[in-house]
């Protein structure tokens, strides 16, 4: 199925032949990093600007909870030595927030009043954590950037009791980090088991068992109604009428693409920025990659929006190819992983709908799950089974080929 939205093709009709002297990439995460470095790898010799609101050069966000949160002596793992950008001729502009795009004049407008002209612009602005207003008491914490690490570590170290609202992947990783630092944790989630919405109740119950075995007090099936700051901590009112006290509160309620600043630009957004498989947005000369984008997928015959580290990096590289007029054809099988306690979860697939989950299990920390919809494999999740994950992922990416391989290796 081709891209369903003809507007992108129409607005880009006259663009492709133009010469490109300057590419402006807005964002400071893995998608922006991979986009700028891939432009150079592909031989682009024009000007490349990377504009990031963060003051740290692109760094490995996945290590924030794994390493930096639990060990204050660890340096932030930057994605390239500081000299690399200069060597590659990438103009790194940190601490600059973009506030608008003028798609007629082809300029990115910055908060300091200046504007950057571009021949091509790549939006790789990522997302920001959701903090619902009733929960946003002073000092309530969220986790996304390097700036969040210090305050969360301080809170975990000095708190006897931490309440984490949201038992998704971020909430789960934070709970695991908190236990490493010796804090008592209550983990709250609106679903009946953690991750029920993303992974289903069967897998969610195994995730719950892991938290409980590690000493987490799990409160599922209730939402946090409000958080209020008291003189010596916080009170969290729950929807079942009970309340909790805590020394600190962290909210892991998901993310929202950081696209508010684009509302006046006229770019097509439906929660995230819409693109075709060539990373092209509805604005000519403007591309979008990573967590802020949702791409049209021929594989899934739908727009896909995920917030996965691995997918964002690969999307950034695809964006560089697209900028240079090479086929980007970004249509991956999304992948993510999460390390919680001594378990590595790995997921591959895009499965907004599933009707069957088949689980093969040795223990709650050693299992694989196959997600199907109408008889077709649409997603796989494994816990501490990297080799089986590799096999299942191959099956997911090329079902017929994987079946042939199985036939070849199984003796008759």
């Amino acid at each position, binding site marked *: 199925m081709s891209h369903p939205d003809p507007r992108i093709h129409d607005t880009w009709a006259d663009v492709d032949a133009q010469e490109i002297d300057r590419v402006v990439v807005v964002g400071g995460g893995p998608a922006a*990093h*991979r986009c700028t470095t891939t432009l150079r790898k592909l031989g682009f010799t024009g000007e490349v600007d990377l504009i990031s609101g963060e003051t740290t050069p692109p760094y*490995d966000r*996945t*290590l924030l909870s*794994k*390493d930096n949160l639990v060990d204050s002596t660890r340096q932030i*793992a*930057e*994605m*390239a*030595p500081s000299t690399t950008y200069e060597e590659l001729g990438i103009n790194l502009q940190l601490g600059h927030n973009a506030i608008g795009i003028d798609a007629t004049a082809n300029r990115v407008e910055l908060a300091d009043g200046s504007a950057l002209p571009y021949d091509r612009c790549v939006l790789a602005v990522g997302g920001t954590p959701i903090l619902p207003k009733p929960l946003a008491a002073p000092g309530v914490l969220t986790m996304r950037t390097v700036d969040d690490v210090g305050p969360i570590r301080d809170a975990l170290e000095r708190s006897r009791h931490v309440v984490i609202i949201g038992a998704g992947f971020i909430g789960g990783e934070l709970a695991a980090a908190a236990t490493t630092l010796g804090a008592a944790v209550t983990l709250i989630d609106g679903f009946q088991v953690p991750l029920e919405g993303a992974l289903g109740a069967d897998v969610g119950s195994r995730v719950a068992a892991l938290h409980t075995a590690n000493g987490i007090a799990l409160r599922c099936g209730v939402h946090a109604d409000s958080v209020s700051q008291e003189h010596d901590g916080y009170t969290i009112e729950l929807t079942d009428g009970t309340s909790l006290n805590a020394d600190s509160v962290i909210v892991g309620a998901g993310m929202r693409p950081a696209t508010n600043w684009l509302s006046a630009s006229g770019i097509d957004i439906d929660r995230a920025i819409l693109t075709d498989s060539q990373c092209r947005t509805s604005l000519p000369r403007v591309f979008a990659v990573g967590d802020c984008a949702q791409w049209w997928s021929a594989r899934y015959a739908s727009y896909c929006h995920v917030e996965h*580290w*691995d997918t964002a*990096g*690969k999307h950034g590289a695809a964006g560089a190819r697209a900028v240079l007029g090479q086929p980007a054809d970004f249509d991956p099988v999304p*992948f*993510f*992983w999460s390390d919680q306690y001594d378990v*590595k979860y*790995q997921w591959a697939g895009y499965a907004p709908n599933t009707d069957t989950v088949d689980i093969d299990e040795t223990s709650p920390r050693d299992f694989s799950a196959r997600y199907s919809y109408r008889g077709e494999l649409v997603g796989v999740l494994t816990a501490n089974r*990297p*080799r089986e*994950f*590799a096999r299942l*992922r191959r099956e997911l990416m090329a079902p017929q080929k994987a079946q042939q391989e199985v036939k070849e290796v199984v003796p008759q």
Partner: protein
Amino acid sequence: MTLNVSIDTELCIGSGNCVHLTNGAIELDDYDVAEVRDVTAATIDQLHQAQRACPTSAIDITES
């Protein structure tokens, strides 16, 4: 003491975390599969960090 770093190519999916963490010790090949180029380019700590950060547990490090 010799450090032996190997990539299990059956597990690697080319996320590239090891590439940015090891200062050129590990690179992606033309098929986006990681390969060890020059172990001495990275510190032991960087190599262990890359092993921890590998999303598919594809990096094996042994000391002999």
